[in-house]
């Protein structure tokens, strides 16, 4: 397939991470965090997702570029279950 899944996935998690981080930073110290034992779950988890999403996206871009440089290997065309090695 010609779309590296890590690109949209990385984007989604980066955006979610960004939203959570910003919202967490804006609501730091707010009583809404009483439910999460006083931990600013939005800020910290937002940062985690930001890092995760960002690295996914970078890896995906790299993969996509490699895929465009060298055309995709054809799928297994051997008949039968045996794969003849090289």
């Amino acid at each position, binding site marked *: *397939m*010609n*779309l590296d*899944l890590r690109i*949209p*996935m990385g*984007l*989604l*998690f980066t*955006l*979610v991470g960004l*939203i*959570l981080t910003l*919202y*967490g930073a804006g*609501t730091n110290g*707010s*009583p*809404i*965090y*009483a*439910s*999460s*034992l006083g*931990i600013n*779950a*939005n800020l910290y*988890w937002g940062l985690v*997702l930001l890092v*995760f999403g960002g690295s996914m996206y970078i890896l995906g871009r790299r993969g996509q570029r490699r895929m465009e440089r060298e055309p*995709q*290997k054809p*799928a*297994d065309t*051997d*008949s*039968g*279950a*045996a*794969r*003849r*090695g*090289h």
Partner: protein
Amino acid sequence: MIHTELTYVDWIIMLLYFVFVLGIGFALKRFMKTSKDFFQAGRALPAWICGLAFISANLGAQEVIGMGASGAKYGLETAHFYGIGAIPAMIFVGIFMMPFYYGSKARSVPEFLRLRFDEKTRALNACSFAVMTVFSSGISMYAMARLIQALHVFDHLFLVMGWPLGWIFTFSIVLSAIIVLLYIFLGGLTSAIYNEVLQFFLIIAGFLPLVLIGLKSVGGWQGMKTAVASIDPRMLHEWKGIMHPATNPMGIDIIGLAMGLGFVLGSGYWCTDFLVIQTAMASHNMDAARKVPLIAALPKMIFPFLVILPGLLAISIATPHTTTTVSMQGGAIIHETNIVPPEVEQGRGLVPAKVNPVTGKPMLDASGKPLLDYDMATPNMLLHFFPTGILGLGLTALLASFMSGMAGNVTAFNTVFTYDLYQSYIHKNASDKHYLAVGRWATVGGILLSICTAYAAINFNNIMDTLQLVFSFVNAPLFATFLLGMFWKRTTGDGAFIGLISGTLAAVLHHGLSLPLEAHPGIHGGWIHVLHTYPSDMAQNFYTAIWAFSANLIITILVSLMGKPKPEAELVGLVHSLTPKPDTGHATWWRRPEALAVLLVVLLVVLNIFFF
């Protein structure tokens, strides 16, 4: 207990997810040129994507909610569904069975049965499978709509828009149907697989912080153990007490567990269900296809911590007596404190008591104790610990798991319908374009039928239990057919066909003649005559499976011995002894599927010792 109301951040996160899901569908549309692209993802996906999709296809909400519920009810013994019920079967299918599925070039599991056996065995399997997938996706839809109602996800939106709250059920069903329909219609199996992988990461993103905060609130792993031990110390062990039904919470014994769950039910599902096998068959070569279930087994080992633990944590927490609703109105923070309703007061931890829908009062069991609504364990954990913001992420993870559970069923249905029913019996030799179009419309038809199932589930109380019962009758004997077909070249088509039917009949008979303790004859069994009583319904299930499997195995062997087997030349690539071993010599040793399998076995043993 603090009750959090959803705010705009939660909505933005949910909306963002929907936009991406549909976006992936639209982005993939231009690659869908042939029916192979649509139904088999062009057989061009990398192993890690298919591997994560392999477990996500099964990680529907029934699993996420159900495993949490089971964790709250039975404790760590639930981990058997992973350690015994899933991982050994996943290793087996990857190492031993995938060479035949992938190598035979069959496009679906029923098609494999036609190549190995004959037309009638394929038709039997294709029909029963097509019906089951449609019903399963309908059940998933129904469960999602009920959960959305229970969690009041859309209540605020409906109040703002001035719509009647009674429409939330229909709204949830229509919304999920449209989204799943669109992304499969556009991007076929690739779209479904991509979204399953997305859902896999969303579940981790949503549930990992939940488990961490939950553990912190009860004082870590030791704190949870102390709290659970005060309820029932048996709940802290996976294996201890398994020798006798009376000494473990599920009321099962080692033979029922190992044979029934491990050998028959687990293998029957992970090794023969096209719902999961389709993702492995979409990978780009044989090596990748064999690695798919093995790659899937790795995160599968971590999932007990993500989905069972919330259930255990939910009962470890002290039952709340008041709720505080924090809401923000025009910048001001408003606290509203209320005394909890009786069903929460009489519950255990965060698990509420079941409420009688007619009287509105908590329901009691025969000994006067309240019946608990374990299905609410995991959702209530989300509401209890997550502030607005991350709550949106948690709910998105739940919604995603429901939708991708549906999607897997729908793509399995459209493939089996198009290749195994339409192309084989209705319209042969049409152009590839024609079958691609049929596949798209089969998607629409499948989803419409699912909606009907979801509505039937509201009107008939028992329909969910009945359907699941029928599925278990049909599925239980399947593994014997595949095992004999792949590993005994003498097996004949007549043997397989008659064996399958006898297996299902044996399951029906066993269910009709046995009854779990404290159940009334009827849907739970004993509707013919009660010959045997089992300590629990789980034990009864396991033994139904064992009977079905054994009947199928014996009858298939007997009938095969009486008939004439297929010539050996026709069985190359389909039967173990006649197929050259898949050559993995080109890969360094640690990249071979076998090396991965050994690693998995070691990890599995470690995990079981940890939960012992």
